[in-house]
């Protein structure tokens, strides 16, 4: 059996996390993992919704050493939780929120006992062990599971650490503005520090002032893992920030203008990461140098008809990508936007097919369609619109029904009530026809 360490830190006294200004050692972390592992219920599947990144990571590690699987759904709507329970009837929820009302058996993150130095060892994990199942929303409402085993997760973030130059024993600390439950957050703010002997901050800063406040509580060298949205707001807030060794951005491509502004104002190199739930991260670029993405070592892209597939390296099974990609050579490519059907709003993913399915399944909706306006800039969040034929429904009732099924970021704005959709003679609804409909109604 081939195994890989849970963490790569070579000393039990090294700092693995910072929480509210306090350093947490590897030894304390491992003791917390052991303590929580002993409290976990019998079920094999765990929905870890802890907001504190340290709690999340202890939960993830406790699940790993107990041979349990973390399930990571794209949203927590009542419908998604039901589907999760159908998928894994033994699923339970680990949370760190006193008001958690998730309709599953729940375990609250415990108050940890005072740490006493004892003999601890770093667990070795089978590379074949199933660690996580990450879900994407399919086209018919049923989520699609993507299995992640230990070997591929570790190889992925170790390749990333090497690419980013984080293996220098420099004790980096990573602050993330993205949740650890998101694939990018899981990789870049949890597994990356664990597998590169670095540390992470427990915080999940929300406002620009929270980001600067969190950065001030950790020592240099600091890394900020964020998104175009948070980085733009951080720049606009015009706050004084401590020195940053590196800034990462993912979930949507940054504009060159914003990338330049970030590097100039925050005085930090900015590296963008390209990846997907299915593949994990597969490429990076230093945006102010080049628009071209460089694949991680051993990862390959292959053109097959209109689609580009990723394989090799940590990508165990070849998967098609949802983006329009131009291969420039064996290890580089350009990104030309998303394939028509895929929707990605601030890192949350769905498809028009899936959203339309939910819209048309609502009682009282005779016909309906979502529409994604052309993105004016990746740095601003573009929202969906929708038009419906639903003479007996109010906007409020329709939105309330949708809210049970889809993540709030996908709720249409505006929602137009029409007498009929602009379908052609064969019943097809073209994007152009929808575009015309919305441009007329907005004027």
């Amino acid at each position, binding site marked *: 059996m081939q195994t890989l360490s849970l963490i790569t830190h070579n000393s039990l006294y090294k700092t693995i996390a910072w929480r509210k200004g306090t350093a947490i050692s590897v030894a304390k972390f491992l003791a917390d993992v052991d303590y929580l592992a002993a409290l976990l219920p019998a079920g094999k599947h765990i929905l870890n919704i802890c907001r504190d990144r340290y709690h999340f990571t202890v939960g993830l590690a406790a699940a790993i050493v107990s041979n349990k699987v973390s399930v990571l759904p794209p949203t927590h709507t009542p419908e998604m939780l039901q589907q999760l329970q159908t998928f894994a009837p033994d699923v339970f929820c680990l949370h760190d929120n006193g008001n958690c009302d998730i309709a599953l058996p729940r375990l609250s993150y415990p108050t940890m006992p005072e740490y006493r130095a004892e003999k601890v060892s770093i667990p070795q994990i089978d590379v074949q062990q199933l660690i996580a199942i990450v879900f994407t929303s399919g086209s018919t409402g049923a989520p699609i599971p993507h299995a992640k085993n230990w070997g591929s997760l570790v190889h992925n973030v170790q390749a990333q650490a090497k690419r980013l130059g984080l293996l220098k024993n420099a004790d980096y600390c990573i602050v993330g503005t993205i949740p650890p439950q998101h694939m990018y957050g899981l990789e870049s703010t949890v597994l990356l520090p664990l597998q590169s002997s670095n540390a992470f901050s427990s915080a999940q*800063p*929300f*406002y*620009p*002032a*929270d980001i600067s*406040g969190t950065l001030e509580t950790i020592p240099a060298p600091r890394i900020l893992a964020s998104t175009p*949205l*948070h980085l733009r*707001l951080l720049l*606009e*807030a015009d*706050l004084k920030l401590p020195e940053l060794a590196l800034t990462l951005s993912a979930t949507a491509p940054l504009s060159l203008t914003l990338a330049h502004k970030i590097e100039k104002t925050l005085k930090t190199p900015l590296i963008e990461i390209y990846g997907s739930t299915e593949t994990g991260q597969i490429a990076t670029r230093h945006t102010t140098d080049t628009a071209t993405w460089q694949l991680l070592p051993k990862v390959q892209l292959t053109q097959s008809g209109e689609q580009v597939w990723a394989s090799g390296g940590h990508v165990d099974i070849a998967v098609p990508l949802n983006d329009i990609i131009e291969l420039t050579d064996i290890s580089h490519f350009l990104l030309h936007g998303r394939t028509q059907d895929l929707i990605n*709003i*601030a890192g949350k993913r769905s498809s028009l097919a899936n959203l339309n399915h939910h819209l048309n399944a609502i009682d009282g909706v005779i016909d309906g369609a979502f529409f994604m306006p052309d993105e004016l800039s990746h740095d601003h*969040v573009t929202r969906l619109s929708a038009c419906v034929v639903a003479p007996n429904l109010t906007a*409020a009732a329709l*939105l*309330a029904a949708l*809210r049970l099924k889809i993540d*709030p*970021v996908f*709720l249409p*704005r*505006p*929602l137009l009530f029409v007498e009929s959709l602009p379908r052609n003679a064969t019943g097809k609804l073209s994007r152009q026809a929808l575009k015309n409909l919305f441009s007329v109604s907005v004027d």
Partner: protein
Amino acid sequence: MIENNTSLQLEIAELMVQALNLDTTATEIDPEAPLYGDGLGLDSIDILEVALVVSKRYGLQLKADSENNHQIFSSLRNLTEYVAAHKTN
């Protein structure tokens, strides 16, 4: 004071409508209705955008941990009261 807050409330409502390109007018926003979820239907991305325009306009910084963030954004009235108490310009 109450009159001041009424005009401040309208001003904030206008900032929100503008920043978020809302499908409603400032006067139509019910000051008591929740901004999140079922009321005005804002989500966390909107809250970040609103926080930015409010911070810039009134010279204050919102923090999620120091104050009860959900309370501040629970209604237009509560947001207005928070801004009135913390504004510096």
